[in-house]
């Protein structure tokens, strides 16, 4: 089941990063800019997920205190 979750995450990340990084018509090789973008995209998406989850937790906590 954990493997299924991993696979699903890969498909989701791949779709998000493909849409963000591969904007031109496909050519005979991934150019280095696109390759760098794809690598960074995965890492920044994880960073962003963590930042967003943290902020959201703070919001929930603040609301439950009021």
């Amino acid at each position: 089941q954990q493997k299924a979750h991993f696979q699903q995450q890969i498909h989701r990340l791949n779709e998000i990063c493909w849409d963000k990084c591969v904007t031109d018509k496909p050519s005979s090789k991934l150019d280095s800019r696109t390759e760098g973008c794809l690598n960074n995209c995965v890492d920044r998406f994880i960073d962003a997920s963590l930042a967003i989850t943290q902020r959201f937790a703070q919001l929930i906590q603040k609301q439950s205190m009021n």
Partner: protein
Amino acid sequence: AHELLKKMTEKCFNKCVVRPGTSLDNSETKCLNLCVDRFVDAYNITTKSYGTRIQ
């Protein structure tokens, strides 16, 4: 809250991280935080409007 977080993450990542670099810079992090706040605002408005309407 899992579905909310998932949608929020996709929408805010796409809005705030236009060209992913080697780390999140300050403006991206600030944008992500504001985006969470506004997404929750929007969610609260949607919930209230929908709740009122279908009563």
